[in-house]
């Protein structure tokens, strides 16, 4: 190829003359109604490199990744692969150029085996499937990157970490040279993150390139060869060289100020019991999802529920919120019984609830931010938008929600910003004064600045005497906020410890089902 051809593009930060970038974006812009999500962004990645995209919620990271893999087309600017300008009109076109994205919502058929999922969509297979050779081939690809996986296992039976591995194997099987991982660690427990990073190393050793997106700065420092910081759709900073930075610097680069995510615990002695749970069991379709759960949460106390997703956390929260009826046992909020009384009653007793599934249960995607806020505030027959509008505007500001204003549709918010709307609604109180706050993974997908804000708000609520039940898979968060920690494993409380003296190793082991018992 000739250097004079306008088809040839060199990586923007790559000194000329060397091999062209594996993949690069050249002043790409993407506009959505009312927001310039990417503004003349330059980006490039070399073979064997891990290049991290860092930025606040709504900074445009997912949008850039979507353009790099063919999901979106840039409005202006272009993408080049090995220096050659390419048009990626669809994810399939991206795949044909060796670019694959691993989405946070896995694209896997639960009922299929690992191998069936991996080969689904492959065009270069014979019409009649030879299971034996397909299984062998899938194992071979998996093992060559140190991703051992049983090709005959049913995907529905796998853990989240294993499913992610299947997604990666699928991308590699389809010949991906460049993998885009959009917040891959958000759903993983610490041991799984470690495993993922080993796999990332194996892949870069083999010359693959990884575009990594994460809000967890410790991870970013550990894994990245290079970091590009986005802010408001623009590139605002670079860090190159492994270990050239620390989390403090990154946080400052990202949000422009210092971030403090230190330990925060109850400052006052706690008051009387607000939430009482007695021997609660829940049986769903013949499966015991919760068995004999008993605990209390006091005024001004934060109790953290740790555990790997799927051990009954969601059901526990839904049961407290009155959305599920326990099979046996009782629940009371502020001394009044809440068992079998339904969600409205629970709210009248002073419950505020941030559920797990944001866009399904927490927010109505097709409604505006304002209307979503109204849901817990207005009980008149005629909707009174005008009276809530100033408050909505204030909340958007306070929570730094990136939106065009109160009328922005919830569906069109970035992941982190949708999260903030829900938190804003629940933390700011509804019609009844909040006595009990149940929050599930409140900071998942949030940037550090937002995490700091949310943690502060939770701490303020605690200081104001609210009882808080914090359910989270983020062990760090629970360790640094909760006054008392309970570990949920297979629907039972496997471990209990005060937050002050909790050992991460012990709690982690209990989460994995390795120990049982009550400590301290």
């Amino acid at each position, binding site marked *: 190829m000739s250097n004079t051809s306008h088809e040839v593009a060199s990586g923007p930060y790559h000194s000329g003359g060397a091999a062209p970038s594996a993949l690069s974006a050249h002043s790409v812009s993407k506009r959505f109604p009312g927001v310039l999500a990417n503004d003349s962004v330059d980006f490039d990645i070399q073979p064997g490199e891990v290049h991290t995209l860092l930025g606040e919620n709504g900074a445009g990271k997912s949008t850039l990744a979507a353009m790099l893999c063919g999901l979106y087309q840039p409005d202006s600017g272009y993408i080049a692969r090995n220096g050659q300008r390419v048009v990626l009109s669809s994810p399939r076109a991206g795949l044909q150029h060796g670019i694959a994205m691993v989405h946070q919502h896995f*694209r896997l058929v639960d*009922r*299929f085996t690992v191998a069936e999922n991996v080969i*689904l*969509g492959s065009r270069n*297979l014979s*019409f009649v*499937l030879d299971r034996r050779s397909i299984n062998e081939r899938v194992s071979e690809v998996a093992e060559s990157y140190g991703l051992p996986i049983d090709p005959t296992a049913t995907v529905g039976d796998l853990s989240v970490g294993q499913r992610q591995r299947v997604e990666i194997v699928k991308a590699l099987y389809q010949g991906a040279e460049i993998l885009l991982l959009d917040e891959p660690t958000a759903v993983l427990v610490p041991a799984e993150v470690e495993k993922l990073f080993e796999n990332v190393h194996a892949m870069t050793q083999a010359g693959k390139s990884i575009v990594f997106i994460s809000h967890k700065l410790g991870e970013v420092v550990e894994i990245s060869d290079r970091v590009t910081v986005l802010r408001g759709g623009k590139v605002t900073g670079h860090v190159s060289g492994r270990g050239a930075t620390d989390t403090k610097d990154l946080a400052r680069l990202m949000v422009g100020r210092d971030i403090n995510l230190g330990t925060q615990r109850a400052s006052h002695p706690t008051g009387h019991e607000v939430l009482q749970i007695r021997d609660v069991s829940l049986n769903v*379709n013949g499966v015991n999802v919760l068995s004999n759960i008993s605990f209390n949460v006091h005024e001004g106390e934060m109790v953290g529920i740790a555990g790997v997703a799927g051990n009954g956390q969601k059901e526990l929260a839904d049961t407290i919120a009155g959305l599920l009826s326990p099979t046996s046992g009782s629940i009371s909020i502020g001394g009044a019984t809440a068992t079998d009384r339904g969600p409205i009653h629970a709210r009248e007793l002073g419950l505020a609830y941030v559920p797990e599934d944001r866009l399904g249960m927490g927010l109505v995607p097709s409604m505006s931010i304002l209307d979503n806020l109204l849901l817990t505030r207005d009980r008149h027959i005629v909707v009174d938008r005008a009276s809530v509008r100033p408050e909505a505007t204030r909340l958007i500001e306070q929570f730094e929600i990136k939106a065009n204003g109160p009328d922005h549709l919830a569906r069109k918010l970035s992941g982190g910003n949708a999260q903030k709307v829900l938190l804003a609604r629940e933390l700011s109180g509804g019609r009844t004064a909040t006595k009990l706050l149940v929050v599930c993974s409140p900071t998942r997908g949030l940037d550090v600045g937002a995490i700091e804000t949310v943690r502060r708000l939770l701490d303020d609520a605690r200081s104001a005497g609210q009882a808080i039940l914090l359910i989270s898979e983020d062990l760090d968060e629970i360790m640094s906020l909760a006054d008392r920690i309970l570990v949920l494993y297979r629907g039972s409380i496997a471990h209990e410890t005060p937050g002050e003296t909790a050992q991460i190793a012990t709690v982690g082991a209990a989460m994995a089902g390795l120990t049982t018992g009550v400590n301290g």
Partner: protein
Amino acid sequence: MNSNIWLLSFADSVAIATTLILAALGALFTERAGVLNLGIEGMLLTSAITSFLVADSTGSVWAGMLLGIVLGAVLAGIHALLTVVLRANQIVSGLALVIFGTGLANFLGKPAEGKTIKTTIEPLSFGPLSDIPGIGPVVFGQDPVTYAALLIAVVASWFLFRTRAGLEVRATGDDPATVDSQGLSVATIRIRYTLLGGALVGFGGAFHMLAQSAAWHLEATTNGVGWIALSLVVFAGWRPIRLIFGAILFGFTLQLPFTLQAEQITFIPSALMPMLPYLATLIALIALSRPSSRNILGAPKALGIPFVRDER
């Protein structure tokens, strides 16, 4: 007890089962792709009368058969257009198809009501084999369509579970978003298998008319077989081979009163047995409407749900 009567009646059950197998296979393919077509009964009737009229006027049962198949596919095409392309509610469209198909059959069949067909499908002759006492008439005394239906069921099973295209159909029924992300067209796959399903239902309707019923009667010709076929798919867990056995069992119970009469057995009310398949149908439809039981039965997860690509 006359064992001959029982053997003959078993042979008859297999014949009834043939219609069931074909119609249920049609429903099975459609549902495996995630489309619920409740219109089977209407399609069977339309195909039956079409094949009757064509066979009657041309004198060729095979021409009748062919037109019956085509009509089945055409009606399924309407369903596909409404539900896959225009994303209408599948249940409403299916029920509309029952009403439309019945009305159309009624209209087309008015002049033929009560008329008998001159040419019918004859059982194959395997010479002396068919005369083997006992199994002879059952195994070697059927007509070609029955053998074809069994073969189609076996091929369908192989296709669904052993081929790449089969994998894609099953994935479309379970998780269309994943299929879409692989660059495959959910709409194309759904339309294709809805049409194939319609053709099979049409085949069943034509067979039922030409080999089973001597005369056209709107009221009596299919007699709810389309609904039974739908329940059969549920009880077979959407698996073609299991469906064969279910069809024979249902065929047997449907046919039993005639045998009981012939045997002059009166201690079992003869009207009771043929009710069972309808009862089973009722149970199956209730099961289909409950998410928890659907899962246990192994229904395609996206069955009945229109696919809309996620905007984000």
